[in-house]
């Protein structure tokens, strides 16, 4: 569908009243910081601290009256600090703290690569190995400014292994300990996602100044519940909690959009409500959002609305895709607002959040200017102002639905039949003076509603918009009215130059019990030009990081049994070309990571000269034991020594492990685990196998003589009897390498006929499994040389 061209358009002919706001500090709903009496505070270190000395001079004009705090307080705080004049004696014993509400962030920085690479002339450092988890902590502090909800919410996303957690803490203590030294303590009351990312039960946010007068240092400390306190140094990001962009378009035959209104225009309003001209942006800014209004407003020609001139939800959805300059089927903090004349449903529908269609809900909303919202009550003293207020109110109301806000009387909805549940247990608010209530449904009707309406959302709505898991709120994310399901955390920024995939060489991601899990890593140059990369990046297990988690248990790192330390060799990978590596990931140096039936998630990452490339999350299933024998073998099998024998493809000195694997081959021969065991038991026989032996008090290197014929018989039986199954369980790289080595060994032992048989079988299996043509060609050349 054609999209309208970007650029400013005429949105209507009626001039929009300009926004004229009462300064925050003079607004009755604004809380600017905090002043505490040091005498009421506990002693240091939690108590009062002296004012900075010397205090800046001269002092400016008198401190605005009236005190006490919280309002009014100048915002931003002028420099130097205004203080009473004439200067009182003694110095006023007050601790003054500016507002701290807003969004803060901690982002972990990649450490030095580990192990640190050896420098290679002409090759940039750092190398590929790293231990970096891409942790990002976002903190929303909500204790002052407009309608404070006295909460601190914490959102933690970990890039690798991918996980996300969210917590909301209720403020239990808020102290101004000294000049611009604020400490807010809160108790966690809500959790979502991975709780291990936000341990403890107590949250302390502290803002303090450095050498200047303003805040310069922010920390968040997690403590309690027996954990070692964990502190993050935060950066201040914004006085708002999230950004959002509104685009307002209108249909040619509708009234021009009502995007502003004078709160003092209608006489029926709260007596202390400041008279100001607010906008859509004002309302949502005060709700905590950094609002930007798209300049790409449009007038939609009426011919596009169909012959009947009214709009269905589907037509509006289509119009949204055509006319919204930012439309895309993705979760984004953005909303399309359409002013149209009338809905198909008739004059009784004043507006609707129509976007519960398709995969990404809540991105579009509409207001109908020829509807009952124009019907001022008979005898109203200022019908024009009533209408403007009602249209503006309706616009904010419908936009509120796009933030997943329910009607005030639907807060508690959530039955087995209902399509959604409240995100936390909520009570209905049928009398709320909120944008989300119907004015005419409260006791006393619309007159009673507007007499007490302060152009705001209720506290429970603000709590939701500011602190609920963002997927619940963000447009295009959770479905309308549904806050279930857990979105994947935001992927950290990646260059897109590389793609990393982790996969098994099999159709289904399912493994048998006892079957060692071998996985292939594939790194592809996703750029447009050739890129240089370490040839051993994936072949050496020490050059990438892999995490494995069983079900929802915490992730555990996988470490290879051996890490090679060598000069770096580089390959120039052409665009679209890939690098491969295969590894047995079931076992690691600390034991077995995959040793029980169930589901496992695996994810890998590599650091390529600072470009952190994260793989897909691979989910595999391990089947239960297929027989009582497998169950019986399990305790002896899932040991570190067996893991080593399998990883090193043989370790004859580990007698017990070798014995276990032999028993496995003997008793459950027709299993994938037996294939691995057979290879591990026979590989040492392919060569004169060195071993350390004692000779009296001395050690010496001894060896077991190669038994190539015996080894060949074992491996050919294990690998060629059912080649497809063997290649599936061993992985392509290991399977074909093993056959290649076997063929070489047989040739060296004079069995060229046997070697040719192995190579032919290998090539046939390669063809049947769609191996890269270049690999098949290399194998064919080798076969030709033998022939």
């Amino acid at each position, binding site marked *: 569908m054609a999209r309208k061209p970007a650029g400013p358009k005429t949105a209507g002919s009626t001039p929009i009243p300009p926004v004229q706001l009462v300064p925050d500090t003079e607004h009755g709903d604004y809380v600017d910081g905090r002043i505490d009496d040091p005498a009421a505070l506990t002693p240091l270190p939690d108590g009062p601290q002296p004012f900075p000395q010397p205090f800046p001079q001269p002092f400016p004009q008198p401190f605005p009256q009236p005190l006490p705090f919280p309002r009014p307080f100048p915002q931003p705080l002028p420099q130097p600090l205004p203080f009473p004049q004439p200067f009182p004696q003694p110095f006023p014993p007050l601790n003054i703290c500016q507002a701290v509400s807003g969004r803060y962030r901690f982002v972990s920085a990649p450490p030095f690569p580990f192990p640190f690479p050896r420098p290679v002339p002409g090759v940039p450092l750092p190398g590929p190995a790293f231990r970096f988890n891409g942790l990002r902590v976002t903190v929303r502090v909500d204790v002052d400014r407009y309608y404070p909800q006295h909460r601190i919410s914490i959102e933690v996303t970990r890039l690798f292994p991918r996980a996300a957690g969210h917590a909301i803490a209720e403020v239990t203590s808020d102290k101004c300990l000294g000049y611009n030294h604020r400490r807010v303590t809160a108790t966690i009351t809500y959790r979502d996602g991975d709780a291990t990312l936000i341990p403890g039960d107590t949250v302390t946010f502290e803002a303090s100044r450095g050498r200047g007068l303003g805040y310069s240092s922010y920390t968040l400390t997690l403590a309690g519940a027996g954990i070692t306190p964990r502190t993050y140094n935060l950066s201040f990001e914004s006085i708002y909690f999230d950004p959002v962009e509104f685009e307002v378009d209108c249909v040619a035959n509708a009234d021009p959009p009502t995007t502003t209104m004078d709160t003092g225009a209608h006489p029926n309003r709260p007596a202390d409500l400041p008279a100001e001209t607010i906008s859509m942006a004002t309302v949502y800014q005060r709700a905590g959002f950094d609002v930007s209004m798209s300049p790409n407003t449009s007038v939609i020609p009426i011919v596009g609305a169909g012959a009947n001139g009214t709009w269905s939800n589907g037509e509006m959805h289509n119009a949204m895709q055509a006319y919204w300059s930012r439309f895309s089927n993705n979760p984004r903090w953005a909303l399309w607002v359409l002013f149209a004349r009338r809905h198909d449903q008739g004059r009784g*529908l*004043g507006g609707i959040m129509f976007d519960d269609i398709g995969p990404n809900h809540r991105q579009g909303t509409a207001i109908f200017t020829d509807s009952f919202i124009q019907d001022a009550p008979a005898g109203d003293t200022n019908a024009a102002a009533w209408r403007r207020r009602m249209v503006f109110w309706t616009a904010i109301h419908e936009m509120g639905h796009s933030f997943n806000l329910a009607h005030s009387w*639907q807060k508690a909805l959530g*039955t087995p*039949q209902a*399509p959604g549940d409240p995100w936390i247990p909520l009570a209905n608010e049928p009398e709320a003076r909120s944008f989300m209530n*119907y004015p005419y449904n409260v006791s006393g009707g619309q007159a009673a509603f507007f007499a007490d309406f302060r152009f705001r959302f209720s506290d429970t709505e603000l709590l939701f918009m500011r602190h609920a898991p963002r997927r619940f709120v963000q447009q295009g994310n959770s479905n309308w009215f549904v806050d279930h399901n857990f979105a994947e955390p935001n992927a950290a920024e990646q260059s897109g130059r590389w793609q990393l995939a982790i996969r098994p060489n099999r159709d289904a991601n399912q493994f048998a019990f006892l079957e060692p899990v071998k996985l292939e890593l594939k790194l592809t140059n996703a750029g447009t030009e050739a890129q240089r990369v370490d040839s051993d990046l994936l072949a050496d297990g020490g050059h990438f990081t892999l995490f494995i988690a069983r079900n929802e248990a915490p992730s555990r790192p996988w470490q290879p049994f051996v890490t090679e330390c060598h000069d770096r060799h580089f390959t120039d990978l052409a665009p679209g070309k890939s690098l491969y590596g295969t590894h047995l990931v079931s076992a690691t140096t600390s034991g077995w990571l995959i040793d029980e039936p169930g589901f496992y998630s695996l994810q890998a990452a590599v650091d390529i000269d600072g470009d952190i490339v994260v793989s897909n999350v691979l989910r595999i299933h391990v089947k239960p034991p297929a027989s009582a024998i497998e169950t019986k073998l399990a305790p002896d099998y899932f040991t570190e020594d067996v893991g080593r024998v399998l990883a090193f493809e043989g370790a004859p000195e580990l007698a017990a492990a070798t014995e276990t694997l032999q028993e496995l081959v003997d008793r459950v021969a027709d299993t994938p685990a037996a294939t691995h065991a057979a290879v591990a038991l026979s590989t040492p026989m392919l060569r004169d196998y060195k071993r350390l032996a004692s000779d009296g008090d001395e050690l010496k290197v001894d060896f077991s003589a190669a038994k190539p014929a015996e080894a060949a018989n074992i491996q050919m039986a294990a690998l060629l009897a059912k080649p497809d199954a063997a290649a599936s369980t061993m992985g392509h790289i290991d399977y074909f390498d093993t056959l290649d080595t076997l063929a070489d060994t047989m040739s060296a032992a004079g069995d060229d006929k046997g070697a040719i048989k192995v190579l032919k079988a290998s090539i046939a299996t390669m063809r049947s499994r769609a191996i890269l043509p270049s690999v098949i060609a290399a194998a064919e050349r080798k076969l030709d040389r033998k022939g």
Partner: protein
Amino acid sequence: MTDPVELHFQEGFYGQHATVSVAGKPAMKLALTTALQTGLAHVATIDAGPGDRVTVTIDGTDQHVSHKLAKGESHVLVNHVDDRLTLRTATESPGYL
């Protein structure tokens, strides 16, 4: 000839089927699902007037609600809240937002 009466099925319907009867005779069958953005499931028009009894029954259950229309009652509002049908009348069409 009577003026039509509007039946507004509002909150609490999640796929139920309902039968509307006027003066004891089935007038229509409806499948109802409330659109939570508006709090409205369906608006139906029936030929009924003062003195006529309007009955709404949730099919397959014993839940029903009945009302004898009075003069001026042009709108019947039906809700299904807490597993119970409720009915009230209005003289003007309710608005939805």
